[in-house]
């Protein structure tokens, strides 16, 4: 079994759900002769499938939020592995992400408004980055998601991504015959010990695997070329 595109889309659905719901609602309230006449307004989630009929377009933030929450609840009911992030966290240790709270010092951003950060920025950074890392952890531990034809997954030789040494790339790998990056070694492992098809360099699974492996080695100094 391979990862279906819809599975990879899910993480982003959770976040964009709120935004898109709000957009859909605002379109409804602007355009709406129908809405003004008190007829129902239909709003739609960014999956293009989850829809919600409202008596009238929401006029307050709270009403918008309620509509978005209702659609997300309905989406979650249809997607049983919705709590996959929590499940991955309960199974696997993830190295803690860098603490960015230092950017919130008083007076920060003065003279550089583009760098005026708030708690929300930090939350978005953390949530989005960790989601990619968690996605990588899930794939790393699943022969099915890696596409292994012999039920072998990365963690069978690399528990907690030990012995992966992402900090040593690029390095010349005689057996591969060129200077390789981490992704080349991941692909070598996929083709040989894991017996899977190799991944395109921009494949979402490759990006997640790299994210997890780098994350687990946080704090280790770079040492490119090291054998």
């Amino acid at each position, binding site marked *: 079994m391979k990862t279906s595109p819809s599975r990879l889309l899910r993480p982003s659905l959770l976040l964009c759900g709120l935004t898109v719901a709000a957009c859909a609602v605002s379109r409804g309230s602007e355009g709406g002769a129908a809405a003004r006449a008190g007829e129902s307004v239909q709003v739609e989630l960014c999956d293009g499938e989850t829809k919600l009929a409202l008596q009238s377009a929401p006029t307050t933030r709270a009403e918008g939020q309620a509509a978005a929450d209702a659609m997300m609840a309905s989406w979650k009911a249809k997607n049983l592995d919705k709590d996959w992030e929590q499940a991955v966290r309960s199974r696997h*240790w993830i190295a803690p992400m860098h603490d960015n709270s230092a950017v919130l010092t008083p007076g920060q951003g003065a003279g550089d408004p583009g760098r005026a950060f708030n708690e929300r920025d930090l939350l978005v950074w953390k949530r989005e980055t960790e989601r990619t890392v968690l996605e990588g952890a899930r794939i790393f531990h699943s022969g099915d998601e890696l596409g292994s034809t012999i039920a072998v997954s990365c*963690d069978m030789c690399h528990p907690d991504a030990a012995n992966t040494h992402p900090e040593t790339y690029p390095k010349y790998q005689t057996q591969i015959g060129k200077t390789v990056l981490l992704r080349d070694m991941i692909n070598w492992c996929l083709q040989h010990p894991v017996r899977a098809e190799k991944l395109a360099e921009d494949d979402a699974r490759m990006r997640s695997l790299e994210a997890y492996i780098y994350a687990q080695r946080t704090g280790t100094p770079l040492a490119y070329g090291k*054998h």
Partner: protein
Amino acid sequence: MTIRSVETKYMERREQLMRSLMNLDRRTFLRVSGAAAAVAVSEGLGHAHSFQPVSVTGTGRAGEVTPFGFAYISDSHLYERKVNDRFIRSLLRAVDDVNALDPQPDFVLYGGDLAQLGQPGEIDLGAQILKELKAPVKMMVGEHDWYFDLGEKWRSMFGKDVYSFDHKGIHFVVLNSVVEEDFWTARGLTPMERMKTVAGLDNRSQSNFQVGPAQREWLQKDLQPYPDDSPVIVFSHSPLYHLYQAWNFWTIDAPEVQRILSRFQRVTVVHGHTHQLLTNRIGNIHFHGLLSTAWPWPYAPQGLPELTIQMNRPNPFNPQDGCGDGRVEVHPDGLVDKVYDLWNRNSVTVAREYLTSNGLQKRPAAANVPTY
């Protein structure tokens, strides 16, 4: 290639001969002695008398051991053939290795994790392959054999998971050290979900291994008739000490088990699960790990015992590197040399003197490609 001196080769041949003489009747004994003397002279190894055995160790009394050897194979993690035949071929290689040993070992310890997901088909397949061994097999259970049906299939094939026996003056104990507290009922996990949870070495959503109070009580009683100077060898799947909890390189109640064993002057614990060269000593207890036939584990990021001389980091480009099987040579004093027969590499011997001297004597060569 190992370069061995003339003296070393001589001592090895002598030791091998001595071992083969132990079970001979008097007439055959004299014939072999004569032949050995002739061989020694022809090879220029000194005068004939130096190579003639002049005494044979007696048997029967407590603490008096007839030297012998046993072999081990461990952690084969078999899937059924239609899923994966790589691990099957590795186990076959180990069986060939052991069958080629001359002299044959007195028995073969199977160190646990014969199956990968505890499936009846995996355990059947493993049992079928192990039947090919010429020497008798002593089975030990691992967590991969256990957590699909809580050992039902394994016990139906191999009998008790906890037992003991005496062999040539040594008391052997086989434990089931992979008992976990029930984490599955409350979560409503299916047998396969439970199995897959335990099968993940770095899966934190399981409990830790333990021997448990019932087995500890059994152990206490089992050891009772043996005086303190009896040599004891214990087999446990997980290390009977605390190394690295997150990977279950750890047995929760290991300190209690050590306490039960501590009255004996000579105790050796041989364990699987860690898939690597691993050496430790706590008091009078010597600990040795076993190699896996399926894949090597990295060394744990912390907790490595001081006496462990790491094996080289496995080379991913060299199939089966870091895997293998091995032997245990039991000496007249009841202590053992642990031999790691690594595939594609030289064997490594961790001699008993290395442990008794706390690492001062017979230190094995250090890795030049260590874990980092």
